[in-house]
């Protein structure tokens, strides 16, 4: 059921099964979710020397949305930063009723023209990729099917950002919304094997899957069952070898 809806939304965003673009996801949010504007801030920290996430590209469907993205960065508070802190979305159906929550951000956001705000963290566990921030110029909740579609579109935005990072399109996204997927355990294992971050481990899993024409889920299963180990940077990965052949 969930997979069907995900496929439908994804198919509406792409022509040939390739990965959706971040901007296309933003535009789809506006036409589909009864919001006035959508923005995605992409955090870039690949290759940074442990300085933590840096703000990278900002995609926004209009000036209000890009203004809201800038504002949060300037005042250092707002729904998107709270969404990172809690790990879940931040849903504000009427910004005017709770001015104390963000004394710096709230009044300025109202001034820009946002009456309702819905922020979705784009994360895969500890991997923080960015945020999807929606606003509406009139107050009111986002509920039911619309909210479900917003979550699915946030998943597609996550996919789009990962695709921008490594260029590998993958249609198997079931693991993104499945907290028990072996991909997450495998990312933890591979980061130890490589001495890398979880993010780099995830990208290496994807790139191995791409090179060997396997799904990410299958590669993850091989890692978790200890039939595949990842080694140093130059060598993409090795079958388990001696260690893997032992019946574990």
């Amino acid at each position, binding site marked *: *059921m*969930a997979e069907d*809806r*995900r496929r439908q939304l994804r198919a509406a965003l792409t022509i040939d099964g390739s990965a959706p673009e971040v901007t296309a996801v933003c535009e789809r949010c506006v036409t589909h979710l009864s919001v006035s504007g959508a923005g995605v801030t992409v955090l870039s920290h690949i290759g940074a020397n442990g300085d933590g996430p840096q703000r990278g590209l900002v995609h926004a469907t209009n000036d209000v949305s890009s203004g809201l993205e800038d504002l949060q960065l300037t005042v250092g508070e707002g729904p998107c930063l709270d969404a990172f802190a*809690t*790990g*879940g*979305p*931040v*849903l*504000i*159906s009427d910004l005017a009723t709770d001015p104390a929550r963000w004394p710096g951000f709230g009044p300025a956001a109202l001034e820009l023209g946002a009456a309702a705000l819905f922020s979705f*963290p784009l*994360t*895969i*566990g*500890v991997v923080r990729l960015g945020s999807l921030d929606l606003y509406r110029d009139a107050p009111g*909740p986002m*509920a039911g099917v619309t*909210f*479900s579609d917003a*979550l*699915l579109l946030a*998943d597609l935005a996550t996919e789009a950002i990962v695709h921008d990072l490594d260029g590998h399109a993958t249609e198997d996204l079931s693991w993104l*919304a*499945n*907290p*028990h*997927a072996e991909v*997450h*355990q*495998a*990312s*933890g*294992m*591979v*980061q*130890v*094997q490589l001495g890398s*971050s*979880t993010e780099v481990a995830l990208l290496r899993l994807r790139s191995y899957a791409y090179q060997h024409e396997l799904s990410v889920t299958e590669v993850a299963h091989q890692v*978790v069952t200890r039939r595949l180990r990842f080694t140093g940077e130059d060598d993409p990965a090795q079958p388990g070898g001696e260690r893997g052949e032992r019946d574990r």
Partner: protein
Amino acid sequence: MTVTEREQRLAQTFVALSDTLVDDFDVMNFLSLLTERAAELLDVTAVGVIVSDQRGGWHPAAASNEDVRLLELFASQTREGPCQDCIRDSAAAYSADLETDRARWPSFAESAAKAGFRAAAAVPMRLRRETIGALTLLNRNAVGVSQSDAELGQAFADVATVGILHQRAAARKETVSEQLQATLHHRVVIEQAKGVLAESGDLSMQNGFELLRDYARSNGQGLTDLAHSIADRTIDPHDLLTAYRLQQLSS
């Protein structure tokens, strides 16, 4: 357990659970304690908390035992089985003997039998008119659920719901959505941390989880925070592994 012992244990359990409802409340500590105590007090083999991902899917958020096959079984009954029926009807669903109820849930009955379970039940986690999840119980023996067990099961399900809402039971409707998503996010972080510990210490995923849980408990730490620090490597996994090895030696 005698009736009096059980009553005492029950009182202790609700005190222990309410003790976790503090400022730095950690929903994963709460749910893991709740599932363990529910299994003990309801005298069943395993208990799981299944929650909605609000996209049409349902996933285990916590279980009394993190055995991989058991987690798979909990996940599979969201497609067919007591949990699915419970969510659909927003009412408790039981089978005292899956063997004789085979026709009702053919594929679930088969995988349950393979994993060694004979009886199953699911109680809805309700908030107002919404069913946000199901507390599911599995038993190795074919035994029915008594009226008092059913009521106690529902009480645990209600407490689990309150826990996911972070004590804000009367809060805005949006709070439910925010907290359910946050809970599933924490679950992903825990899976990543399990992977780090499994690889660093050559442990099974289940032992990786137990190490996280026990270390968090004995250090009064949030399971979520600890898992986060392990997965982003602000804590060295060997700090936990050393404690684990020492414990293994002394036991």
